[in-house]
């Protein structure tokens, strides 16, 4: 997989020809014509990894004549450019980006992410208005509270009431609008969502305070209502930020296939066309290192393709004439001539993406439990307020109004509404600092209750191949060297008994470093620091091996059938062998390299009471070996994406809540369909777009850390809820009886909210699990 990644990032011969983009037909799709005559385009930028890249890209673009505005979003890896295309053509713009070292791909004009950007800006403005308003309202309210203790004249009191009204009004009417809009939406859909009671509470407290201000009696609660809106918006804003960092599916799909293809004309020459223009029956040429643009049948002799992202198959497969190649797979050794069979939405790749969409739709809705709790609590409070109103209306109508408002304010569902967002927000921050990006915040709650983990194998548990042993054949008995001893060989030329092994390793490394094949990389890595001699007359044989001359000897490194004559292959394993004309020199045993933390992670998860399972698209024999090394008993190999999803349904039918961990395109449906999908950051965009949690830095162990933190979060949420419930049980009856003075109601509400937030801040204070505390620095023992 790592080799495939390398090949994909290098601007290979398959990189698109920018001039093509000046085609008017194509531009109609990607350019947005602005009112001032300038053009606007959204580019998906491949290779954009960090903030420094953003600067390099920005510099490359703004240096061009006619370029007006450049906006680059490193998170979504998109650049948005407004420029005068009479000065600089689109092709020149793309060429400049390519020169800066990135791979630009103009996206369809409808991908202009206006909606997302505006949503983010809107939320920020509303939050700020609520913050300013709440602070000011609080200031004016303090004057009123002091006035309740040390009486002031009614004119001053009314002045401060109206000032409170003036600052609370924009908070309620502008900042609070999403709640009202949401409530209206759910009422139209005949549901009682979270927004309905919240909007009702805001409207009632605000309306009651206004009535009191007009009337001249009682108390006003403009500060409480502003603060309520502010707290709720703060939680929602953090959630939105997380959501916007996620990739969307269409974007991910656009990056899996190349934008253009080399089509052969009738006269045999090549022309570059957009992939969208390919039709079944076209003949297409794909170069080594490029991505196959459409499903098709191989017309040339032979090639090797890496389908690991599509099928989970860990080794690149050999394809002969007439075999089928799949869009999105990587041509490791080519070139290949392809007769197109299916394009666009008909390809196998598009089928997998469609499966992702369906799986997402059928994902069980379980995490909104917290919202339901808040909604039912608010509904209960509203009921109690109505009962209070009724009771006082019969007993003493004059005291009805203050008592109802006191019930609403003292119970103001802040503590309840904040219990979950405060804890989740804190957890997200702690996780981000440890390298875990949580895309869907409710995954935290789901993760704490998970019972099953389904791992993908290739790219998730394993990471490429390594050379685990070498067998040297010579005059004497066959000698075997494990990985450690191979590295020692490479460090210094050894004494006599190891001399033959040393020279075999040198020769193998000399050949291996001439190829990017994963097996070659593994052998070269096993040789360590060894300085190999120079290989000459190198010939690479697709799918078989490599042949070269080293120190005057003609050597072959590769499959036994390639390196040896037929009568010599008896008794040789299925590894990679090194041979010369007279026969076998050495055999290299390759095995899949487990991620360094894979075994520890599996152990930690099992110790945590989870059932661990491997579901892979790779050959069952290889899956079995990996499962045995990790001590995992349940495993399945040879699964198609749909099979994986079916397996998931089976597990779920037994009542399990599943975490799926994967990285490839073939994992995407199962990631989307699982209760929690976890993707490796180095995996495909599609897998990341389909999952809820992304593990950065390729560290699998973060999964058990995240799980532990999720449990802690849930415990804190429970604590917070109990605390809020206890507070409300004590306060509401008193308020209903009219015994709580308004300033105490407001104070109680603020303090209960503060308690919830402070409690949430304790999450993650404990030392990260699995790390021993450092010994305190002190005088060394004598």
């Amino acid at each position, binding site marked *: 997989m790592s080799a495939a990644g390398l090949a994909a990032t290098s601007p290979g011969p398959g990189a698109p020809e920018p001039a093509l983009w000046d085609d008017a037909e194509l531009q109609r799709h990607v350019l947005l014509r602005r009112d001032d005559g300038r053009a606007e385009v959204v580019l998906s930028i491949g290779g954009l990894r960090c903030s*420094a890249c953003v600067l390099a890209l920005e*510099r490359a673009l703004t240096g061009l004549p006619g370029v007006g505005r450049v906006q680059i979003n490193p998170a979504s890896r998109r650049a948005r450019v407004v420029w005068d295309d009479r000065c600089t053509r689109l092709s020149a713009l793309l060429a400049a980006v390519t020169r800066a070292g990135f791979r630009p791909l103009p996206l369809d004009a409808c991908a202009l992410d206006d909606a997302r950007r505006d949503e983010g800006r809107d939320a920020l403005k509303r939050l700020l*208005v609520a913050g300013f308003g709440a602070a000011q309202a609080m200031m004016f309210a303090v004057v009123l509270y002091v006035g309740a203790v040390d009486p002031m004249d009614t004119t001053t009191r009314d002045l401060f009431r109206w000032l409170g009204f003036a600052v609370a009004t924009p908070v309620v009417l502008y900042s609070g609008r999403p709640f009202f809009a949401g409530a209206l939406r759910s009422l139209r859909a005949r549901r009682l969502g979270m927004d309905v009671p919240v909007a009702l509470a805001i409207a009632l407290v605000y309306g009651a305070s206004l009535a009191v201000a007009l009337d001249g009696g009682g108390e006003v609660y403009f500060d409480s209502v502003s603060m309520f809106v502010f707290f709720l918006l703060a939680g929602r804003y953090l959630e939105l930020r997380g959501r916007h960092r996620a990739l969307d599916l269409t974007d991910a799909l656009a990056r899996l296939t190349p934008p253009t293809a080399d089509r052969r004309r009738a006269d045999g020459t090549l022309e570059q066309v957009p992939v969208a223009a390919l039709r079944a029956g076209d003949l297409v040429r794909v170069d080594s290192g490029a991505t196959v643009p459409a499903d098709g049948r191989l017309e040339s002799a032979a090639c090797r393709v890496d389908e690991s992202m599509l099928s989970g198959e860990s080794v690149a497969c050999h394809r002969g004439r007439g075999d089928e190649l799949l869009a999105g797979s990587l041509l490791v050794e080519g070139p290949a001539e392809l007769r197109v069979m299916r394009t666009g939405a008909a390809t196998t790749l598009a089928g997998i993406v469609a499966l992702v969409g369906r799986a997402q739709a059928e994902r069980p809705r379980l995490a909104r439990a917290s919202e339901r709790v808040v909604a039912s609590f608010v509904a209960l409070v509203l009921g109690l307020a109505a009962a209070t109103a009724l009771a006082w209306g019969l007993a003493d109508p004059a005291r009805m109004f203050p008592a109802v408002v006191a019930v609403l304010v003292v119970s103001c569902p802040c503590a309840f509404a904040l219990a979950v967002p405060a804890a989740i927000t804190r957890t997200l921050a702690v996780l981000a600092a440890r390298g875990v990006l949580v895309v869907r915040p409710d995954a935290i709650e789901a993760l704490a209750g998970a019972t099953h983990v389904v791992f993908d194998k290739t790219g998730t548990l394993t990471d490429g191949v390594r050379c685990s042993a070498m067998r040297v054949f010579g005059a004497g008995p066959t000698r075997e060297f494990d990985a450690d001893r191979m590295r020692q060989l490479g460090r210094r030329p050894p004494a006599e008994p190891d001399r033959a092994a040393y020279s075999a390793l040198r020769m193998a490394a000399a050949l291996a470093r001439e190829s990017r094949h994963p097996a070659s990389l593994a052998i070269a890595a096993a040789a360590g620091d060894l300085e190999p001699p120079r290989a000459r007359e190198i010939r690479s044989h697709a799918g078989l091996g490599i042949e070269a001359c080293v120190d005057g000897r003609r050597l072959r490194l590769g499959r036994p059938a390639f390196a040896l004559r037929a009568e010599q292959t008896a008794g040789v394993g299925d590894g990679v062998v090194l041979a010369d004309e007279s026969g076998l020199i050495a055999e290299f045993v390759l095995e899949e390299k487990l991620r360094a933390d894979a075994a520890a992670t599996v152990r930690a998860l099992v110790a945590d009471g989870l059932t661990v399972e491997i579901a892979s698209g790779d050959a069952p024999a290889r899956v079995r070996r990996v499962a045995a090394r990790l001590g995992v008993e349940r495993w399945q190999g040879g699964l198609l994406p749909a099979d994986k999803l079916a397996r998931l349904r089976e597990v779920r039918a037994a009542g399990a809540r599943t975490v799926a961990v994967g990285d490839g395109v073939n994992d995407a449906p199962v990631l989307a369909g699982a209760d929690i999908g976890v993707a490796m950051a180095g995996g495909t965009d599609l897998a990341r777009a389909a999952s809820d949690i992304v593990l950065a830095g390729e560290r699998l162990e973060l999964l058990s850390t995240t799980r532990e933190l999720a449990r802690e979060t849930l415990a804190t949420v429970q604590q917070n809820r109990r605390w809020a419930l206890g507070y409300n049980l004590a306060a509401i009856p008193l308020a209903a009886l009219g015994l709580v003075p308004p300033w105490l109601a407001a104070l109680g509400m603020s303090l209960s909210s503060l308690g919830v937030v402070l409690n949430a801040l304790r999450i993650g204070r404990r030392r990260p699990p699995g790390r021993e505390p450092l010994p305190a620095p002190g005088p060394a023992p004598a």
Partner: protein
Amino acid sequence: MNVLLLMIPLSIALVAGAAAAFFWAVNHDQFDDLESPKLLPLMDDPDDPAAPPGEDRTGGR
């Protein structure tokens, strides 16, 4: 107490001004990218045509 009549409108005007400035900033892309600007001073720009090294920088001001 009369000072209140000056201070309160002043405070509200200040807040309104701050909010207006913030809205302007949000609408002018100031909050869209919070990542790269912090690295700006660290970047070398050897081929920045606007400011060639030497005479232009010192001679300009």
